[in-house]
């Protein structure tokens, strides 16, 4: 399961619905930004008049100078009562700036508390008048719809695969249960960040013994994994198998109606790789069965799916990054493919430390640039 400290797949991400895109303001590793329109704002006791008061849609840099007011020391850009950008603590004589991308045409507000006139209209011309129809949004809508379909399809396979596993557990068929254990999990590990957003569902399905307060309450795959590989008996596992079936059905119902934001895809992909580099590479996840590489592969596949859905939008913004990510996904896949065996993967306990490190390095090299995607496609 995912660590609880990871920023929730639902929390945070869903709020990032806007066509305002932040523009990195520094040279160096940041993306080259198109030239921004400059708007000068001089803070004075009379207020904060923007010059010009109207700009074309696109990147905008607000350059603010406090020409000597002790009362007006901050300025905000608002739309519909939401602060889109601000600069504060500008003491007399100080200056500063903030940059953002204003793709939505319409009326905004420049606000400065303490000024004789504290609200000044500001207009963006051209662009789209409503969020959701800005250029590029079509491909983002396709991405989020595509992700919904992917999650539903994975869960559709997860349900019967889990049933085969739990049937074997209930029948006491150890060989069959062991065979199905990693196969069923493949369809879960790729969509884990989604399952993680449904409260207790993920812990119930995928908790490891370290995640539960009372071992007697421990349920899910890893409880049965321990029974099979460590305790070497399926005795008493019937109720755990029944509960697992029920949880998986619940998951199916929940994902059917779920909708996603592009930021969720981007951040979810990073979460999946973080999961690989902290849990799978160490062999913690499947500590009894050593089937970690199956989960590893499923996590990477899930991340790659997110990336591929976002790729058209990303390539339009930053083709170099899209290309680099493609190459690094391929690199991870190539390194992982060395451990293929039959329909699956070798026992992870046979993979020596230096080779595990090689896998970890490849995943980390991918995850770092991947973490920048959210800022480009939201």
């Amino acid at each position, binding site marked *: 399961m995912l660590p609880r400290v990871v920023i929730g797949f639902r929390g945070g991400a869903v709020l990032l619905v806007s066509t305002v895109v932040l523009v990195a303001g*520094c040279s*160096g590793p940041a993306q080259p930004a198109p030239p921004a329109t400059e708007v000068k704002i001089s803070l004075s006791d009379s207020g904060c008049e923007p010059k010009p008061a109207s700009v074309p849609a696109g990147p905008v840099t607000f350059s603010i100078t406090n020409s000597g007011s002790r009362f007006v020391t901050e300025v905000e850009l608002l739309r519909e009562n939401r602060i889109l950008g*601000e600069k504060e*603590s500008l003491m007399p004589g*100080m200056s500063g700036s*903030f940059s953002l991308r204003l793709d939505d045409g319409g009326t905004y507000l420049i606000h400065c508390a303490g000024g004789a006139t504290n609200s000044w209209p500001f207009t963006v011309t051209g662009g789209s008048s409503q969020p959701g129809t800005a250029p590029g949004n079509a491909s983002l809508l396709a991405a989020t719809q595509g992700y919904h379909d992917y999650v539903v399809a994975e869960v559709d396979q997860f349900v019967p695969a889990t049933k085969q596993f739990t049937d074997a557990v209930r029948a006491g068929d150890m060989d069959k249960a062991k065979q199905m254990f990693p196969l069923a999990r493949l369809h879960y590990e790729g969509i884990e960040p989604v399952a993680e957003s449904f409260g207790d569902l993920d812990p119930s399905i995928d908790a490891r013994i370290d995640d539960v307060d009372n071992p007697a309450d421990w349920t899910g795959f890893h409880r049965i994994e321990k029974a099979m590989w460590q305790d070497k008996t399926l005795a008493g596992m019937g109720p755990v198998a029944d509960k697992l079936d029920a949880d998986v059905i619940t998951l199916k119902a929940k994902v059917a109606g779920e909708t996603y934001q592009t930021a969720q895809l981007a951040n979810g992909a990073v979460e999946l790789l973080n999961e690989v580099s902290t849990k799978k590479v160490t062999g913690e996840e499947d500590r009894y069965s050593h089937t970690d590489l199956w989960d590893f592969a499923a996590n990477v596949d899930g991340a790659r799916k997110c990336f591929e859905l976002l790729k058209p939008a990303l390539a339009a913004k930053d083709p170099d990054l899209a290309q680099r990510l493609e190459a690094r996904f391929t690199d991870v896949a190539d390194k992982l493919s060395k451990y293929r065996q039959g329909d699956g993967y070798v026992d992870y306990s046979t993979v020596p430390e230096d080779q595990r490190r090689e896998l970890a390095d490849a995943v980390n090299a991918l995850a770092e640039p991947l973490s920048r995607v959210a800022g480009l496609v939201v």
Partner: protein
Amino acid sequence: MEPTSARPIVSGAVSRRRLLGGVAGLGILGASGAGLTSCAHATDNASTAQQTVPFYGSHQAGITTDVQDRLAFAAFDVTATRREDLADMLKTWTAAAEAMSRGVMVPGDSHAGAVPPADTGEAVGLSPARLTVTVGFGPTLFDERFGLAPRRPATFTALPALPGETLDPASCGGDIAIQACADDPQVAFHAVRNLARLGRGAVVTRWTQLGFGRTSVTGTTQETPRNLMGFKDGTRNIRSDDPAALAKHVWVGAEAGQEWMRGGSYLVARRIRMFIETWDRDVLSDQEAVFGRAKYAGAPLTGKAEFDAPDFAGRTTDGELAIPDNAHIRLAAFEANDGVRILRRGYSFTDGIDARTGTLDAGLFFISFQKDPAQFVTLQRKLGKHDALNEYIRHVGSALFACPQGVANASGYWGRALFEG
């Protein structure tokens, strides 16, 4: 002045309260829009200026710079396969190191809510702490991978096996090294951490070492510090105000035949484990005989004050050599080594205990700079065989790096003359 991206050590800092929570409910992008600025430039605040070591120059900072109190050192292996990718990483590193040296956050956006901050943030609110970041290239970088073999100076080969060493491969070698020194340990760590992050995909970290206390002195007004054996170290070190000695022993000149190393220097790093527990059981007179100096005053056994020149011919009333023939300072002295000197810049370290013995894993992370690696080899061949100190120390890690000439200005980057020259 631009307050928001600079670490808020001065007035006008971005308000964390406002940034993180004050606009809750207004939409998350409101918060993330706060503090979006272009990069700040160093403030002209006088105390900050004193805490700042210039990054640009003909030599890299962090070699003759008055030794700072703390060290964070990292060696990397290059995983990039194209020379351009490696050069690109060094450009990124240079820009980030230059900014951090001024106490400014790593270039990029650290305020947008939708992306991970460009800077990891733990140095926000701290002073520049005289941070220097020094880069070096290992001999392995000059293999067939990047076509750099023709650029390898003739004197630059991996260190040979040396007496007195039992090397752990986990603390040896590397294609590239970063030495970050600062008066604040978190500032030094922050520099290494952020460069490692920026290098991800091009390099992987091979080993790291933190040093908690300087054991050497390069400045003219610095007190001589003590190593973990309790002795003053670096009394006879080359000082920054001795350009003749620096030119003769430290800075590479035209003789290297490689322009990119002119003004550079070779860095030798040795992780020297001290057997502190056995040393602590040695009587004072023997400890002093091992070093050839008085423990507390730091004076040579033939003198009274720390900076008295040692008299290596001096004898006691019994007719014995006052500084024994296997004393550390005798064997290391330039008088006994055809005038060979090195600039030392080491740090004390401790990394927990040796699980096999229960003894402290502590000692000296020795760093020296010299114009030719052979200078170190000459000294260690002698010390490793004969030094009385060997009973209490062992060299367990080793690496050699060629630190290129300094970056002159913002249009340059570390190793530019190596990659483009």
